[in-house]
């Protein structure tokens, strides 16, 4: 039971962890000062969420492991984030596309998680949902701006959406741990979020003068710890200090 809840929480938090890390890479390199600040802000929110989740997970594990152990001392096959969030910052259109495709899901997910019978999870969801609704507004505004802006920006945004689309379906897959926790009433049945997700995403894409990708082929694996080749490099940075200087306080 505890194992399932622990894994369930990691499944949620790893998305925020890896996406936060990707956004952190950009800090100081944003295309404008305002977007730099906004992306850093989202990263900050996400890491704040990660800490809440992992502190709770550490309590459940009950064996002295810390939030940092959970965040930084797992192996590549133990991270449960979806493939979408680990995709690189190829350019700003990819950063925004990734954010948008995740935010729409994230917002719907948290709205459901608020109803969790697990009071800690529902409290975290309740705190996070305000932040994430801001994220979603920010990213969908930018999708519209880039989609509607110039021919160049439209093409770049379209290419990013086309490439990232293949990672959207995984958001609605359930792991074994998910199923158990959903059955207990503490988890969110993500399969039920799918229809509204694509409805909302398509709505924004249309407003942004972007075409809705038609591909019916999707990639998955992240939730089972089988990641794209991008993740390993991200982890080597994320983990560097904890690995090189083990068992210290910072």
């Amino acid at each position, binding site marked *: 039971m505890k194992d399932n809840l622990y894994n369930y929480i990691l499944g949620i938090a790893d998305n925020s962890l890896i996406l936060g890390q990707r956004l952190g890479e950009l800090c100081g390199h944003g295309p404008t000062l305002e977007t730099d600040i906004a992306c850093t802000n989202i990263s900050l929110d996400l*890491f704040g969420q990660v800490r809440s989740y992992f502190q709770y997970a550490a309590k459940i594990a009950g064996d002295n492991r810390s939030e940092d152990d959970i965040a930084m001392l797992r192996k590549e096959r133990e991270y449960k984030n979806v493939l979408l969030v680990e995709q690189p910052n190829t350019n700003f259109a990819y950063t925004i596309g990734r954010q948008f495709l995740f935010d729409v899901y994230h917002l719907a997910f948290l709205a459901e998680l608020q109803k969790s019978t697990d009071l800690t999870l529902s409290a975290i969801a309740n705190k996070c949902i305000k932040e994430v609704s801001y994220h979603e507004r920010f990213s969908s505004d930018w999708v519209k701006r880039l989609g509607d802006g110039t021919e160049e920006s439209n093409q770049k945004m379209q290419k990013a959406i086309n490439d990232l689309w293949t990672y959207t379906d995984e958001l609605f897959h359930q792991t074994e741990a998910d199923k158990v926790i959903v059955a207990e009433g503490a988890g969110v049945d993500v399969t039920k979020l799918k229809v509204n997700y694509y409805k909302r995403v398509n709505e924004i894409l249309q407003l942004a003068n972007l075409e809705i990708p038609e591909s019916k082929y999707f990639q998955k694996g992240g939730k089972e710890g089988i990641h794209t080749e991008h993740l390993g490099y991200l982890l080597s940075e994320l983990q560097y200090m904890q690995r090189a200087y083990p068992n210290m306080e910072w």
Partner: protein
Amino acid sequence: MSEEQIRSLERQFDERIARDEKIEPKDWMPEKYRKTHIRQMSQHAHSEIVGMLPEGNWITRAPSLRRKVALLAKVQDEAGHGLYLYSATETLGISRDEMYEQLHTGKAKYSSIFNYPTVTWADMGAVGWLVDGAAIINQVPLCNTSYGPYARAMIRVCKEESFHQRQGFEIMMKLANGSPEQKELAQDALNRWWWPSLMMLGPTDAESVHTEQSMKWKLKRKSNDDLRQQFIDQTVPQAELIGLTIPDPDLKWNEERGSYDFGDINWDEFWQVVKGHGPCNKERMKARIGAWEEGEWIRDAAMAHAEKKQERKQKQAV
């Protein structure tokens, strides 16, 4: 305007400043005042923006989630400082794009300290403690400077900077009290950042230009050497408190002066870095210019979208 009139305006202007009144954007001001302020304020804004880079370098590798969040927040604050310093400078009739242009072509300067690399995690401590520490000493007097928008911006900046400085000191303290390896990291960072931090307070008074005029306009209220002495006197006891050694064999307390005596600063290094030949000058400019150039299509898109939106609104109104 006749020369007579101008001289009269200048007299009134000087008197207002002497009375500690604030000069506001719409007030008349001498051209030299405007130009000097644009130079200093934009340089200050650029320093915030370039200053994001050495610390940004450790965000992905911060050793704990708590430190990562604090570091992200700190770098974000610097972006915020940049933002309102640019805005304050814009009140003097220069656009942000023009200021960027000056930065990217090397016409405008930024604080040389950011041309040193952040080599280890401990540098996040040293930068906060020493660099922000020296910055505050430079900046606190500016909270009372004569140009209103600058003074108000500085009040906000200083409040956050002193929070950053405490945060940096806390990183150093934790390291200094940590494992022998951590203590070594801290000492090493202090060794590397000490002298550049002293240089941050500017060239010796003998070599310093603009000082007299700046004093009058309250852009400067103490000499560089006085500020440097203040920084040293404040910092040495902090280093002692956490058991670190200032890397200056000539450093010793001077009972008579009530201050620390200290060793010679390597001004050759200072001027080399100022002139663009520090360890990271090229990297810093490459990063800033890169972000600017890569941002072009995005800024264009945002502009085009805003125009289209406006047009659509107008069409609907018709």
